[in-house]
């Protein structure tokens, strides 16, 4: 009888403890602020549907969890052996089983799961629905993402950009996901689930943003050395802003100011040093001053280069400073953005950024790329360190900052 009372007490304590930790968990995951990648703060319909599916599942699972843990504690306390129990005398009843009970607890969970399975089917089938979608091709590379926009659907690639995809608010977007080297996974948790980018295949993921803002993402399929810092962003603009962005991206960038000697020198340096891998529309290693930009990117740029690339091409730099982030979505390109994407940045979404560039980030990247992102340029994975002088870094930076 002692057992009975202490069983109640301890079960109560267990219940409190379990509920406390449950609350801790729920409280913590319920705070989107500062957690740009959280899966539980959906911002678009697809992510919302997933949320609607998983919350009941979590509730059912939570109930079972509480029942089992609390029940276990109750059993442990209630039926523990007394010191004065004698073996062979105070023996429990030898129960071998109870078929009805066992069939019951086979069927009941199965039935509960069957009900949940219906919602599972519905949600799964709804994931690919898209209404008048905008198609954007995403290509995974070690360790950055390329986006290609074919605006008229005529097979001509109009915009090539990297790491930061711009989308209009309120429209379904179909991301056509491909890979150039290994398997990556494209994931913007606030907007939709992830989808692998598999070489040789094209997969799709539908998403829509309901509010403008920068949505953070992360490659989630292990893809080698720098997998951990392979980031991406999707920036959602109001439709007008989006048109502005398109306009800017489909125009060739302005030439550097002829008085800006630094930038002019940087441009030259870029052509001789960088343009083997990085495309600025119209420039190539064989071109010479006066340089001419083009308003159309060359989608085969990488293929024409005579360097064997394990990881395909390098990011298109034509409108480099249009992107809020650089270096594979890792470093902020403008002040006020955070490196980890923390904070509520969904308000920062200007079609043409006007903030103060983070020059130091860029310079550090040019000086020692491997200090920011682990790479293996010897195996053509990632950007080599060209041992640029400080002067050259100044020049290149000045030039790159003009690319808007």
């Amino acid at each position, binding site marked *: 009888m002692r057992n009975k009372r202490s069983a109640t007490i301890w079960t109560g304590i267990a219940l409190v403890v379990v509920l406390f930790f449950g609350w801790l968990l729920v409280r913590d995951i319920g705070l989107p602020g500062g957690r740009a990648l959280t899966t539980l703060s959906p911002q678009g319909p697809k992510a919302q549907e997933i949320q609607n599916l998983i919350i009941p599942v979590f509730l059912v699972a939570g109930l079972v969890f509480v029942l089992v843990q609390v029940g276990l504690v109750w059993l442990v306390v209630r039926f523990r052996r007394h010191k004065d129990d004698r073996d062979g005398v105070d023996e429990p009843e030898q129960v071998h089983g109870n078929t009805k009970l066992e069939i019951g607890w086979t069927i009941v969970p199965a039935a509960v799961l069957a009900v949940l399975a219906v919602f599972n089917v519905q949600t799964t089938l709804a994931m690919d629905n898209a209404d008048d979608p905008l198609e954007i091709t995403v290509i995974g590379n070690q360790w950055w993402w390329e986006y290609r926009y074919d605006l008229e659907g005529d097979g001509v690639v109009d915009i090539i950009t990297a790491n930061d995809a711009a989308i209009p608010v309120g429209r379904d977007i179909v991301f056509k996901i*491909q*890979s*150039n*080297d290994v398997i990556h996974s494209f994931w913007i948790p606030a907007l939709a689930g992830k989808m692998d980018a598999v*070489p*040789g*295949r*094209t997969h799709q993921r539908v998403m829509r943003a309901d509010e403008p803002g920068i949505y953070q993402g992360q490659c989630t399929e292990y893809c080698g050395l720098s997998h951990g810092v392979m980031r991406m962003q999707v920036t959602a603009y109001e439709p007008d802003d989006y048109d502005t962005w398109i306009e800017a991206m489909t125009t060739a960038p302005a030439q550097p100011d002829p008085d800006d000697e630094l930038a002019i020198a940087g441009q030259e340096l870029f052509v001789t040093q960088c343009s083997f891998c990085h495309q600025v529309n119209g420039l190539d290693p064989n071109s010479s001053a006066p340089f001419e930009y083009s308003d159309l990117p060359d989608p085969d740029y*990488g*293929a024409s280069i005579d360097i*064997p*690339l*394990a990881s*395909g*091409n390098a990011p298109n730099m034509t409108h480099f400073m249009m992107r809020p982030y650089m270096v594979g979505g890792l470093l902020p390109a403008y002040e006020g953005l955070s490196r980890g994407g923390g904070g509520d940045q969904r308000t920062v979404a200007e079609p043409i950024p006007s903030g103060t560039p983070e020059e130091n980030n860029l310079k550090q990247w040019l000086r020692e790329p491997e200090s920011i992102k682990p790479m293996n340029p010897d*195996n*053509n994975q990632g950007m080599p360190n060209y041992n640029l002088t400080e002067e050259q870094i100044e020049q290149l930076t000045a030039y790159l900052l003009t690319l808007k």
Partner: protein
Amino acid sequence: MSTETSTTKGSDDLEHEEHTHGGTDKQYFQIFWILVVLTALEVSTEWWDEWFGEGSRPIAVFVLITLMIIKFFLVASYFMHLKWDTPILKRIFYFGMIVAIAVYLIAMTSMNFWTDSGTTEFNDPPPAPPPVEASD
């Protein structure tokens, strides 16, 4: 142990009927000739296109699969003694076979084998990988 040789006393009395192995040489020859005929039939499908026209292709595939299964079971049942041995062996072996068939058919289906020979939409092949020197 427990082998069916004459020295094995125990097993002899115990399982003599079900454990008496196999057929006679003559039976095996008969099975063999059946197998030969079936194989000949199988090989003949190679020319069915010429004889019966293109339309016979699906039938030929069906016939081939059927003959293959028959041959498989003939060899397994007679030459491998499954017909005579205790059913445990049959169950183990066919269990493995069925698992193999089921699992791989599902995998192949999932890889779109039946619809377009395994390819989904292929995007442009990526640039050729570099000649590899790093490791031999």
